[in-house]
């Protein structure tokens, strides 16, 4: 099974035998990989019925639960790592979810697109319209992505909430990192993978 590039990076940050909660787990690719290769006890939250069915068929623990409603049913420090890939920008209260991730888990791993990438800036700057691309294919009125932010914004939030950034990997859409995006991440990085803790 070949793993999605971002999940390949994430799995390297997860310890064998640990407990992982995946917020918005999709079809459970990451949790399957972690179960089969790292003896991880994982649980995923998902709201898409087809994706939930897929998790069930693959023997992944999945719970039908909306991240925007509440994560109160998860006890403090009950997981080693809480993962959320490509969903932060779709949350009603991204800050609350981030706080919850670090209440429930010792570490959090998040990925989200960078709204300050030069292509977004170029699109907005030249056309004067909200950026639409293959990578972010929605128009402003039907997008699930209601809280776009930039790397700087996210790191500012982390500082305000006393959240430590343990690792940051800035990559392009295919999750390759380059010396350029390392040089000027907030301009040249398209996606960031953050590993955070209290």
């Amino acid at each position, binding site marked *: 099974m070949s793993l999605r590039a971002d999940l390949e990076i994430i799995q390297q940050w997860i310890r064998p035998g640990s407990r992982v909660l995946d917020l918005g787990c999709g079809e459970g690719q990451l949790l399957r990989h972690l179960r089969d290769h790292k003896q991880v006890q994982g649980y995923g939250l998902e709201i898409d*019925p087809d994706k939930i069915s897929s998790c069930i068929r693959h023997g992944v623990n*999945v719970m039908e639960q909306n991240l925007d409603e509440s994560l109160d049913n998860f006890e403090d420090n009950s997981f080693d790592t809480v993962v959320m890939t490509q969903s932060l920008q779709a949350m009603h209260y991204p800050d609350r979810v981030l706080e919850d991730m670090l209440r429930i888990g010792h570490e959090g791993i998040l990925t989200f697109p960078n709204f300050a990438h030069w292509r977004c800036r170029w699109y907005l700057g030249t056309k004067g319209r909200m950026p639409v691309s293959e990578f972010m294919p929605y128009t402003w009125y039907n997008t699930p992505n209601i809280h776009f932010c930039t790397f700087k914004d996210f790191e500012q939030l982390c500082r305000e909430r006393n959240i430590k950034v343990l690792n940051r990997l800035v990559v392009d859409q295919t999750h390759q990192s380059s010396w350029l995006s390392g040089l000027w991440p907030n301009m040249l990085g398209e996606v960031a993978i953050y590993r955070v803790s209290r």
Partner: protein
Amino acid sequence: MSRLPADSVGLVTPQRQTFTDPLPLACGTPLNSYELVYETYGELNASASNAVLICHALSGHHHAAGYHSADDRKPGWWDNCIGPGKAIDTNRFFVVSLNNLGGCHGSTGPSSINPETGKSYGASFPVVTVEDWVHSQARLADVLGIQQWAAVVGGSLGGMQALQWAISYPERVRHCVAIATAPKLSAQNIAFNEVARQAIITDPDFHNGDYAAFGVIPKRGLMLARMVGHITYLSDDSMGAKFGRDLRSDQLNYDLTSVEFEVESYLRYQGQEFSGRFDANTYLLMTKALDYFDPAAANGGDLARTLAVVQARCLVMSFTTDWRFSPARSRELVDGLLAARKDVSYLEIEAAQGHDAFLLPIPRYIEALSGYMNRIEVNQ
């Protein structure tokens, strides 16, 4: 003679097993001997690793799938899920379905003859609990050579049995599938059961449960009990869609007793039909078993601690419009399993049919059950 559908388990014959070792009961009075009537579908494999137990709900019984005769109008109560190629695939699994103790479909219950007196038990039949049922089912498993169930599956009161199995015999259950159920009833839920019981108990034909001796049955009470129960199994939406405010005739009669609305007619029919085929004492017993179920009570109400012993992987499912066993109650169970660090999946199925949904072929529900069951490993 009509042809049976290809995906049916076909003609089935109920079997019975007599137990002569006294069964200790929660109430303190053991049952000295008893019979359980059951059906099986599919073949038990050589390693006996493919056995699935189906636990029935309040008014259910052992006849879960297939037909007793080619002339039967309807198959067993869960035929849409049990059969070759169905969600609980009898090509893979050996499925066991029994009538619980205290029932009125062949297993020893209030309408059976008490061998010690030569008369029917009637009111003297002991109150049995979900835990008692599970112990009696374990003895049946022993007889059938099943050391461990691949899965124990049930909806509503049946889901409570599946859960109790995972708690009472953790090493004997690999998977627990609990559908439209709760870790204990709420006050409102007990209240509905009490209305049903009062309807039966206050029927002049009830005779303190010994109606058989008087050659009568408390039909009216049982009918009322079923009517109120039935309302709670449906949703406001499903009743609205089915009946609305439709009248049986063109106009209102302006009298106080005639059947005017279609919904009245339907409920009366359901109640009457039920009162002709179900035993009143059994109904009382089943509702008591529901009310008493509260496995966490043994641990001061701590559900997670109660579930700590569970070894089974669990699948919990609820239905959005079910208000008798609402999704919130299933989530309590899921949270308990999570806190106990057990493997659990939870689905909240969008369905308009209320509590009854667990018996209906709702595509997403069937797909999930099927996906889960197909994933269960069985050796040869």
